[in-house]
């Protein structure tokens, strides 16, 4: 089973972004890295110039690099960005189906967790169109994951770690929380490198916002499900970037897969840096996603 670093969901300053991927290239025992902007096209100009360098360093370190599409493409400028992405010559990870329209028929691509792949028909259709790997939506149960992996249409990956991407909107919640409109947001989402917590009136940790995205408050951790994921035939686990301790986290998951540590030890050691400070894995068993099967 291999490890993929998913696209960073958050808005970090350029220096932090560059250093993060330099360390991934040099130190993280992962096979694949997905780069690029997933959430908001307005963020891209801030770190865009560092992308070629990151690609070169990751490639030189033997990592496979893919570029993500935006999760929600609406503006003309965003459609143009998507077309240009295809011209970069790297694998494109489709996270909005309209990116497919820009891929020449037969061109290889991968499918990210924000595309609705719930069943065999959809998986087979995407494989027929050229998909070489599919990261399934985090909402799927392990039973569904097993059915999909068993088709052997294409290797499937599962969301293994990180705040869950639960929704995407036309509205920017970060701007709204600052009484601003999306067009005059002044990039306030940069203040929250792992998302901004949203609690209920009774102080329960509930969700987190990240610009136009809504995430789980808790950090998904599928480490306890590793044996079941293996049995289901899952090819890879996706680890979603966080601002603290991420290289160590990649190492812990590598050690877990290779049998050097237990899921319980991983959960304990990774908790201090986990966004939200609590875990969830409920989607796997078909329960509420917020629930957690582990002990930490």
């Amino acid at each position, binding site marked *: 089973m291999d490890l993929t670093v998913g696209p960073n969901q958050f808005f970090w300053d350029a220096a932090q972004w560059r250093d993060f991927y330099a360390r991934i290239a040099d130190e993280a025992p992962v096979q694949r890295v997905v780069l690029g902007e997933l959430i908001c096209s307005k963020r891209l100009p801030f770190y865009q110039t560092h992308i070629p360098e990151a690609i070169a360093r990751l490639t030189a370190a033997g990592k496979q690099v893919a570029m993500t599409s935006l*999760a*929600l*493409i*609406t503006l*003309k400028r*965003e*459609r143009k960005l998507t077309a240009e992405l295809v011209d970069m010559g790297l694998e494109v990870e489709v996270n*909005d*189906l*309209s990116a497919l*329209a*820009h891929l020449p028929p037969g061109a290889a691509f991968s499918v990210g967790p*924000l595309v*609705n792949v*719930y*069943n*065999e*028909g*959809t*998986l*087979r*259709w*995407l494989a027929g169109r050229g998909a070489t790997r599919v990261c399934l939506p*985090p*909402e799927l149960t392990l*039973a*569904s*994951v097993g*059915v999909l992996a068993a088709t052997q249409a294409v290797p499937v990956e599962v969301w293994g770690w990180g705040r*869950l991407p*639960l*929704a*995407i*909107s*036309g*509205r*920017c*919640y970060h*701007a709204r*929380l600052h009484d601003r*409109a999306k*067009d005059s947001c002044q990039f306030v989402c940069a203040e929250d490198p792992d998302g*901004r*917590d*949203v*609690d*209920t*009136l*009774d*102080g*329960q940790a*509930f*969700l987190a916002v990240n610009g136009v995205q*809504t995430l*789980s408050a808790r950090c998904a951790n599928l480490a306890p499900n590793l044996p079941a994921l293996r049995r289901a035939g899952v090819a890879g686990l996706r680890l979603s970037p966080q601002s603290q301790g991420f290289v160590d986290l990649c190492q812990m998951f590598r050690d877990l897969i290779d049998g050097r540590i237990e899921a319980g030890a991983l959960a304990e050691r990774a908790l201090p840096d986990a966004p939200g400070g609590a875990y969830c894995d*409920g*989607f796997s068993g*078909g*329960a*509420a996603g917020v629930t957690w099967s582990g002990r930490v």
Partner: protein
Amino acid sequence: MELICPAGTPAALRAAVDAGAHAVYCGFADETNARNFPGLNFSRTEMAAGVAYAHAHGAKVLVAINTFPRAGSEPLWHRAVADAKTAGADAVILADLGLLAHTAEHHPDLRRHLSVQAAAANPDAINFYAEAFGVRRVVLPRVLTVAEITAINREIDVETEVFVFGGLCVMAEGRCSLSSYITGKSPNMNGVCSPPSHVEYAEERGELAAKLGGYTIHRNAKDAPAPYPTLCKGCFTSGERTGYVFEDPASLDATDLIPALAKSGVTALKIEGRQRSRAYVAKVVRSFRAAVEAVEAGRPLPPGALASLTEGQQATAGAYRKTWR
């Protein structure tokens, strides 16, 4: 412009047709449609009778099969498409790629509309669905402004349908798993959002708390009206701010935008509310039919008769106005 009206029951279908609906949309009583509530929707026999009634009165029936088929259970969805065709449906409304591919292959003559649950939000996406699956009409997601809708219509050859009234999703539809995160049940997989089975009301400290899956969504004075705890329309705290972080408990009313939508090239206006009573449906449909006819005749819009019907007495034009974002 066509007026597309909701029918959660055979009675609501007849009420909508009688009130002037050009078409009604409805679904089978199972998880194949995105309004899978107890006591709602149509058996196979009811569907056939509903189609016959609508056709006899010059209206069309569009069958929503717009959840995402569960892995290992696709035949349930495939049967729904075949049965909609047998019942005489004028079109099926689909969201899932695999189901679209199946329908295009096995029922090429059955007209295919793309559900709002597919969230096709730009011309590239829409043209992709048209080319790959022969989709003839797209229900646009509620993330677009009127100006963007106009621009989209210039770049596509298929019809567009937009929501003008009723419940309002703040998130791109079909791409939201907030409900399953809190309750285990979602629109995509189960056809429900914030399901009543997970709602509880508790009197605490002289207030009424409305909870979903144990999470407090609203807190109101005991005697004040308590809004339904739809999870994206609750009152929450983030940092120093407390309020409606995602959206106020408002519903969509784009009546005033009908003239602009007509100019933008939209083919059909859609009213949300398959869970609503037939009296509600009849009132909304009558009002919108009058508005559409006024706009088409170049008359001013009739004064708003719908304020009393909007959720919590609050209405919004949603994403159609750019400031909403």
